[in-house]
């Protein structure tokens, strides 16, 4: 009989990138965003100390790009907090 060991789920590449990526210095580093993506509106950050203001149009671009769960135990965490959340239980 073959015994299967249950491996804990491994984090995905996207989860690992999210963890290891460093914070962009928004005011000092210029990102060349790929064609079709716009930069944050620079006017928002004029006179700002930290430069971490983002307009809605910039933020919405991430919606279809980054869909990875925050962690491998996310589903369990959601069950413990939000529950099934839905109507008609």
């Amino acid at each position, binding site marked *: 009989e073959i015994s299967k060991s249950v491996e804990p789920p491994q984090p*995905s*590449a*996207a989860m690992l*990138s*999210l963890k*290891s*990526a*460093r*914070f*962009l210095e*928004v005011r000092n*580093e210029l*990102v*060349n*965003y*790929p064609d079709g*993506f716009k930069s944050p509106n620079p006017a*928002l950050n004029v006179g*700002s*100390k*930290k430069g*971490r*203001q*983002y*307009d*809605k149009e*910039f*933020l*919405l*671009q*991430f*919606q279809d*790009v*980054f*869909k*990875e*769960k*925050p962690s491998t135990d*996310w589903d369990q*965490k*959601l069950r*413990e*907090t*939000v*529950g*099934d*959340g*839905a*109507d*008609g*239980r």
Partner: protein
Amino acid sequence: TNSSDGSGELKTVFHDPENFNVKHPLMNTWTLWFTKPPSGKGDNWNELLKEVISFESVEEFWGIYNNITPTSELALKSDYHLFKKGVRPEWEDVQNKHGGKWAYQFKDKKAVNIDALWLHVMLAAIGENLEDEDDNEVMGVVVNVRRGFYRIGLWTRTVGKAQGKTSPEQGKEMLLKIGRRFKAALQLKDNEQVEFSGHTDSAHAGSTRAKAKFVV
């Protein structure tokens, strides 16, 4: 991987969603909370209010948003709260007890896209479009799912009083400015009034709504 080319090139999720080396920081760290509907067995508020997760980057926000129950699918008496880290979404929190909230009720639940509205309000909060950098007024935003309406609120630290170097007039003007930006994020028409009330006024009024202190 990107380290092997040694170029120090900035790679965002837009370049490669699986293999990126920079993420976009938020001005504040935010915590998402959820209020479970009461089970009817006399459970207390503290057991119903659950801290879900904290985050401090744009990428983390979307990972959460894309993997959590949409507001439109929540049971009645549920709330989502998105608050600055360290502030509990309760009147009794020491940072809220002198504050109040801007709020709008959407009474025709079928006519509104509550998921889009709540998303846009969260984006305005985390993108820091609701207040200016040194205002230090916004504590968080909240959506309530009820039988007769959806309500979206924005909690502020004060009720627009004089404090430090600001006059009462300046304090009020700051709150009105935040209220107008909140109204814009909700894409309301000019004649749709967003109302501000202090938390203590609301508490004394019981479950009914307190008399609005300001409107925009």
